[in-house]
């Protein structure tokens, strides 16, 4: 009580109104000042009850002994003002076309540009501008990860993220199919906000990348979401387990957030390329990593910061993108006369999948098994095709993990090219099911979300 009275008194001094201000007004202003003076996470005792400041500026009662903070009930999220019809008009997965011979009729790059929205099986409807509340029909993003619409040898899109050659907006951020209510709410919150504030959000992420030696990675962009960082919870300490609420959120929301996170990272990366274009020629180099999920690309960069510092920027591609972004990076580098070094890490997915599960216990984030399998099967093939086409124009590095150590080769590891997506997915699914009893629920849910999302 005494503390709050003192704060109120100080707040009144700060106001220094020349004329007498009604007590009720001072109270309101002082209350605001007092409220804002408390940082998120602060615990105050009031009349024998402890309250903790929440991220949304409200206070929530906490249990005695400072158990984990309770979060006030959030009002239901508003429906998006307009559902951008371009957002996810990818042609639905065709009836199992052969990987290299997709029929032209279905060959429009998924959600590539408004002009490419003409999926033959669905008429497009733009929302009437005069009726902003009219909800346009949206289709969800469900590309065939083997589909190569432009015939460059590299598939156009992975199941998650944005298509390789696209940097929204425009078009809008593609939305995943078959998300549950919570996933849809979180996907919409992130995507809608990005579509309305794309440049600003990209600039925010650019600042983060600068602190990380100009490394751009999609997963890091997920931290722009408060539901991911959960800064209302105590920060994670070195050597201690991740906060359980944070772990749950990351495992369950990883897939739903991936679309927008990928868009943010790409947009920010382009901004950095614009900066690099102005550097002296000998500094105009970027590193581009590719390889399956949990293959070690990101960890290698963190373990050796000199690597990122040796170039002007690093596009640390998410394994989930199946190396579909390399043509885009190449194109953007060519425009700006920047030299890209494309590096591929191949690893044994039957070793890295248990690693990904183990990693999830530490960091919370859990990749879906289907997306994992694709990253190995399609990633290697896409990278090889890309290398075959551009080997005389750019620098390529092929790294492999052999007997627990990195080794280099002149080309793609043949074993990497022989991975079958369906077989690996079956293996990964069986593995995660066999470990279900030993794992927190949220890890199993995160790893198997694809069963619902893609069937």
């Amino acid at each position, binding site marked *: 009580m005494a503390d709050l009275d003192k704060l109120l008194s100080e707040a009144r001094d700060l106001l220094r109104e020349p004329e007498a201000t009604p007590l009720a007004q001072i109270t309101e202003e002082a209350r605001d000042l007092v409220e804002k003076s408390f940082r998120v996470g602060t615990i105050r005792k009031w009349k024998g009850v402890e309250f903790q400041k929440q991220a949304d500026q409200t206070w929530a009662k906490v249990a005695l002994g400072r158990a984990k903070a309770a979060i006030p009930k959030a009002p239901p999220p508003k429906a998006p003002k307009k559902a951008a019809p371009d957002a996810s008009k990818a042609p639905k997965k065709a009836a199992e076309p052969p990987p290299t011979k997709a029929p032209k009729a279905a060959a429009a790059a998924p959600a590539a540009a408004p002009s490419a929205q003409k999926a033959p099986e669905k008429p497009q409807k733009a929302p009437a501008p005069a009726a902003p509340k009219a909800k346009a029909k949206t289709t969800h993003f469900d590309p065939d990860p083997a589909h190569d619409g432009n015939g460059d040898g590299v598939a156009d899109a992975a199941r998650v993220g944005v298509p390789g050659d696209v940097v929204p907006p425009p078009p809008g951020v593609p939305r995943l199919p078959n998300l549950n209510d919570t996933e849809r709410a979180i996907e919409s919150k992130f995507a809608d906000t990005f579509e309305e504030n794309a440049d600003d959000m990209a600039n925010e992420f650019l600042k983060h990348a600068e602190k990380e030696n100009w490394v751009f990675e999609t997963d890091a962009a997920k931290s722009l979401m408060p539901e991911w960082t959960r800064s209302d919870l105590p920060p994670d300490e070195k050597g201690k387990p991740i906060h359980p*609420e944070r772990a749950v959120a990351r495992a369950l929301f990883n897939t739903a957030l991936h679309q927008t996170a990928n868009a943010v990272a790409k947009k920010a990366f382009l901004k950095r390329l614009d900066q690099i274009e102005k550097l002296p020629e000998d500094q105009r180099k970027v590193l581009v990593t590719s390889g399956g999920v949990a293959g070690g690309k990101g960890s290698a960069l963190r373990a050796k910061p000199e690597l990122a510092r040796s170039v002007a920027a690093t596009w640390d591609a998410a394994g989930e993108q199946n190396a579909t972004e390399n043509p885009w990076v190449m194109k953007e580098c060519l425009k700006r006369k920047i030299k890209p070094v494309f590096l591929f890490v191949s690893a044994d997915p039957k070793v890295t999948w248990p690693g990904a599960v183990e990693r999830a216990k530490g960091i919370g984030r859990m990749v879906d098994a289907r997306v994992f399998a694709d990253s190995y099967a399609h990633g290697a093939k896409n990278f090889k095709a890309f290398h075959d086409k551009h080997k005389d124009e750019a620098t390529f590095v092929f790294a492999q993990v052999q007997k627990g150590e990195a080794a280099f080769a002149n080309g793609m590891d043949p074993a990497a090219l022989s991975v079958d997506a369906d077989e690996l997915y079956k293996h990964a699914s069986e593995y995660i099911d066999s470990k279900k009893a030993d794992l927190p629920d949220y890890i199993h849910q995160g790893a198997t979300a694809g069963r619902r999302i893609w069937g």
Partner: protein
Amino acid sequence: MAKNLKVSDDDKKEIERLFKDGLDAALKNPKKFWDAQRERESKMKPYSKLSAKPLVLPKGTKRENVTEQMNNLLADLGKGK
């Protein structure tokens, strides 16, 4: 438009050397780098406009709403209590 954008052999070798060092270290002690990543992620600030919107939490998260009670208690400030 320049089509040959290869880096020098020395640059390539340097990248390979640094990457090998990094990957070897990561393979020997992956947990160390997962922990570092987690620590980094937890320090990153969310985007302000996203923070201003209501939090979306996984179903089943227990939440207590005593905002009204707290606001009433804070309003007592004006009454000199």
